[in-house]
């Protein structure tokens, strides 16, 4: 009962790692107070309000529990008062019928209160779990609706950390705080009322220590918070170091930097220890301090109570049992005050976490105002870029007055130096990014006027960085078209030249891909991504450096296999490798955001311009 609350309080904070400290949002964690305290609280309440029925039942049950718990000490005191001592003779007499009745009442009340406590526990866990579930779902759904630009410009670790650490933090606090705040307030009020019933003088005496409690706990939690914030930041740093070094472990190994990595880690860990010790010492002081204050209170009431009994004063009328009850009540109300003080730091952290969550939720969705329906099946695949202007960063245009016209069924290749804007063309066509000026037409329709889902459904895309999911090979290929049959999947794998290596693995299509994809070579991963796009059966196919790690013979086989497939389809190919682009109907050479020349391989070569130079360069200096 004198258990210091301090160390329980430390745990949820210590257990939560994450890399929340980095990035632009990391700075926010350092701000000790959340920016919009009440606004955030109101929004959080709305989330809790989603389970309004549960909340109200919970509050109701808590009201019962509090009342029942308050009745306990009163009955206990009354029960002890049935045992009376004759001050003169010292003879003890007991009023047994009354004792039995009172004890019977107590038993009944305890039974009820236990039952109610059980319901309270059930409802509270339901409430917190439901809230977290909704919060997570909303956040995830929001993430899938965010523009790519947001994802590109924010640390993935930071987004992840909001999804896990911050949500977890909020949920823990909701489970503990909403319940305990309410019951604390009820208990304080109730205990006060009960104590007043016995004696207002004793109540005042019991109150003497309250200001002390508040001063001590707020001072302590101020220091605690400072160190806990620092601790979270360092923990994040540590997480970041581990993640980066483990992901880049091969490089660490190759350059023999293990020792340095360990040294850096030790350094961060030492700083973490330093801060954590201080955070916990401040937290650890809380327990004993409250204990001292609690005991002081106990002593005060006992001494004064005793004195009043020996030297009865006219306006203080009190029995031994009353003292016992008042002692119990004073404990009952000093505890919630401690608790509120104790949870102060945690509540602030959670609200800061909630702000980080709401910040994502408040980010505008990807623009998707298109209403015109796009008949994906009837699409021809004419693409027109007209006067397109675009920049990732304002003032640094990537594309300027960009024109490009692709006829249905054409195979277009885009070449150009690194940073010339090749990938940008893809980003704009798929509307991963929005153009700043001009328009992009698909079969004569502005792509901004059709729903994004329709637009993207008509485009199959294989990206520079192969993205595969940690699932079976089958599931990864079928991602292109979920309802595809196994035959169709196998045919797609065959087209992408992937079936040969897949069949060579004993578990074939059921092979689970590792997180890092380490069980496949880079080239094999690219083949799977191609198979996925082939299965999607799009009207327009975009290959952005899709075969850079595939050997040229395999690439040729893929190209041959795709010839029949690509009839009546438009394809856009970005590559450095000549063999990849040579067969294209039109080759476009990008330079500084504009097309500097275009034409077929032969035309461009005979023109002797930029392309011819690029082309010759491939062999320059090799023929020694």
């Amino acid at each position, binding site marked *: *009962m004198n258990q210091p609350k301090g160390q329980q309080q430390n745990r949820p904070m*210590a257990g939560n790692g994450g890399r929340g400290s980095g990035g632009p949002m990391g700075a926010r964690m350092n701000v000790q107070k959340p920016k919009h305290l009440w606004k955030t609280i109101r929004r959080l309440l709305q989330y809790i309000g989603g389970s309004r029925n549960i909340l109200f039942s919970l509050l109701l049950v808590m009201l019962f529990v509090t009342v029942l718990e308050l009745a306990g000490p009163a009955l*206990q005191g009354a*029960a*002890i008062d049935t045992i009376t*001592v004759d001050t003169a003779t010292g003879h003890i007499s*007991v009023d047994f019928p009354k*004792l039995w009745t009172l004890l019977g009442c*107590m038993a009944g009340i305890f039974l009820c209160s*236990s*039952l109610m406590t*059980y319901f309270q526990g059930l409802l509270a*866990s339901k409430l917190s779990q439901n809230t*977290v579930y909704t919060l*997570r*779902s909303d956040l995830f759904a929001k993430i899938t609706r965010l523009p*790519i630009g947001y994802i590109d410009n924010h640390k993935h*670790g930071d987004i992840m950390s909001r999804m896990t650490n911050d949500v977890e933090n909020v949920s823990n606090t909701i489970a503990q705080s909403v319940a305990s705040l309410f019951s604390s307030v009820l208990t304080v009020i109730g205990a006060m009322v009960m104590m007043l019933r016995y004696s207002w003088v004793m109540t005042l005496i019991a109150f003497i220590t309250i200001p002390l409690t508040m001063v001590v706990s707020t001072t302590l939690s101020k220091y605690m918070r400072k160190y806990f914030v620092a601790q979270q930041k360092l923990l994040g740093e540590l997480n*970041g170091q*581990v993640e980066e070094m483990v*992901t880049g*472990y*091969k*490089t660490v*190994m*190759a*350059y023999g930097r*293990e020792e340095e990595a360990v040294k850096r880690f*030790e350094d961060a*860990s030492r700083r973490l220890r330093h801060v954590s*010790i201080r955070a*916990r*010492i401040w*937290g*650890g002081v809380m*327990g004993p301090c409250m*204990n001292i204050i609690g005991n002081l209170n106990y002593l005060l009431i006992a001494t004064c109570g005793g004195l009043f009994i*020996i030297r009865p004063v006219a306006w203080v009328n009190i029995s*031994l049992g009353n003292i016992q009850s008042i002692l119990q009540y004073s404990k009952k109300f000093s505890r919630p005050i401690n608790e509120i003080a104790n949870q102060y730091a945690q509540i602030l952290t959670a609200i800061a976490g909630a702000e980080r969550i709401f910040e994502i939720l408040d980010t505008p969705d990807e623009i998707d105002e298109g209403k015109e329906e796009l008949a994906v099946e009837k699409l021809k695949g004419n693409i027109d870029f007209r006067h397109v202007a675009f920049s990732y960063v304002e003032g640094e245009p990537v594309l300027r007055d960009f024109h490009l016209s692709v006829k249905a069924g054409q195979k277009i290749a885009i070449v150009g*130096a*690194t*940073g010339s804007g090749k990938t940008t063309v893809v980003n704009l066509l*798929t509307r991963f990014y929005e153009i700043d000026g001009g328009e992009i037409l698909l079969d004569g329709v502005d792509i901004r006027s059709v729903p994004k889902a329709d637009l*993207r459904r008509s485009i199959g895309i294989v990206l520079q*960085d192969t993205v595969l999911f940690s699932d079976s090979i089958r599931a990864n290929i079928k*991602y292109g078209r*979920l309802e595809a049959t196994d035959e169709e999947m196998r045919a797609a794998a065959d087209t992408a030249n992937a079936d040969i290596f897949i069949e060579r693995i004993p578990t074939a299509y059921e092979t689970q891909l*590792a*997180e890092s994809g380490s069980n496949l*070579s*880079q080239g094999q991963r690219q083949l799977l991504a191609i198979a996925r796009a082939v299965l999607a059966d799009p009207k327009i196919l975009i290959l952005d*450096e899709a075969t850079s790690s595939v050997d040229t*013979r*395999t690439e040729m086989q893929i190209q041959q296999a795709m010839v029949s497939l690509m009839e009546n389809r438009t394809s856009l190919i970005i590559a450095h490798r000549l063999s990849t682009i040579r067969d294209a109907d039109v080759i476009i050479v990008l330079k500084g955001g504009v097309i500097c020349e275009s034409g077929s391989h032969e035309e461009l*070569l005979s023109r002797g311009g930029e392309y011819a130079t690029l082309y010759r*360069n*491939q*062999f320059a*200096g*090799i023929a020694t």
Partner: protein
Amino acid sequence: MKLAKYLKPYWFLAILSPLLMVGEVMVDLMQPKLMSRIVDEGVLKGDVGLIVRTGLLMLGLVILGGAAGFLCAVTATKASQSFGHDLRCDAYSRVMGLSLEQTDDFTTGSLVTRLTNDISMVQDLVSMILRMFVRAPIFFVGGIIMAVSMNTSFALALVIALPIQLIVIFFLLSKASPLFGLVQKKLDRVNSVVQENVSGMRVVKAYVREDYENSRFDRANSELRDTNLRVLKLMSILNPILMLVMNFTVVAIILIGGYQADAQALHPGDIMAAVTYVTQILFSVMMVSMMFNSISRASASSKRIVEVLDSAPVIESGKEVPAATGDVCIEFSGVSFRYPGTAGLPVLSDISLQVHRGETVAVIGATGCGKTSLVNLVPRFYDATEGAVYVDGLNVKEWDLSALREKISFVMQKSELFSDTIANNIRWGKADADDDEIRAAAETAQAASFIEGFSEKYETFIAEKGASLSGGQKQRMSIARALVRRPEILILDDCTSALDLATEAKLQAALREQLKDTTVIMIAQRIASVRGADRIAVIEKDGRILHCAPHDELMQISATYRDIYQSQMKEGGAGHESA
């Protein structure tokens, strides 16, 4: 507990802390006794002096106890945090010594969790044990002694109540503990879905799979919620039952006390004290139950940490550091290789190849034929399954690992950059490289021009995993990093695939000029990249090398090579022959 040895250096603190806790507990235990003395001897007998004396004694004790409690918290914290720090550093340096196949097995995410969350969990447990494991039993035993010493009949109530509590606790915990592990697993699942979506967002959007992903997430999310609820439902039975037993015991104590008092064997004040003691005893039982709760949660964590600590590196360093003598720099002798833990055909089979000092050997072959696997064997990222790899005439297994790797620069297919400045990223190759060396390396790697284009040049900060750079820029940076150490052996694993043709040609020329004495193994897809090599090894589909010869000779003898050549050169061939 295997991890206990990490507490050893702090044994003094670890022992001191519980001792101090004993002090605090003693005070807490004495308090009700003193309290009842105030009531029975002071109040009832009207002895105000006694009340004040006892009161002051109590206050003194309380302060003493508080001080002991504070010092206990300090020592316990110091011990547990130092324990955590040592454990964390040890585990991390263990990870930094693991072989690739092992880190692959653990997966990055899991290693991160183990080194941070899991260790925090165990560390908190240690702190709690230091403070609570003593407190609870002392409260327990002390409370029993005090209560029973007042009147033996109180023992009866305890004899009934305690077993009930213990049974309830053990029953519930045995049911709940498997669920704790399950919760952890479900949480992992939620995290991995989020992670995949964040990093693979382009693919999700491109295939319009937002709804699919949402339902996938919903499954993971609701499974987590349901499992969590199962645990919470189970655990929410615990407290009400314990409270009920406790409260009923209090009722019983008062009843027994009433009869004893009626028999003139007991004072009312004693009953009050007894009620307090009994509550303390039963609370200590609840404390223990809480402790078991955290132990069963932390034991999963400690198991995961021990797994890391116990995994000895598969690849152990040899001792020898031979001088670079002889004509042959690298030799593969009858090497076969299959990735550890995989079945089926080997990736490489019976490869024999000698690379001479200062020679450039290119490796070419189909996707998945084992090119990367071959070069991985040189710096011992993996060990050959059969046969041996020799560097400077010594089997790499006998080499001192760090000396071996110091000789080699390895540029990977997938560039790995670290969130640091450009200069520091290049400095990875050579820790003490000065600015001129860095600039020279960047120059050779054709990276200087784009680096100079940044406003902060070499001090430009690179975002996580080089996200702010294009593929080609990343590759050139990692080449610069490899060059700055002027290695004896340079391995280039298809690391120019994202470079445009002009840049690659310039890079090739610069490399040839700068690396006259360096032995180079170069993997590439383009004939153009490999043509200039002294010899080209062609790996066949079945993982064997049939031919290793200069370009012109290969054109004559290797059908595979001719095939590759044809696939790239069939048109406009004449143009480049003359170039």
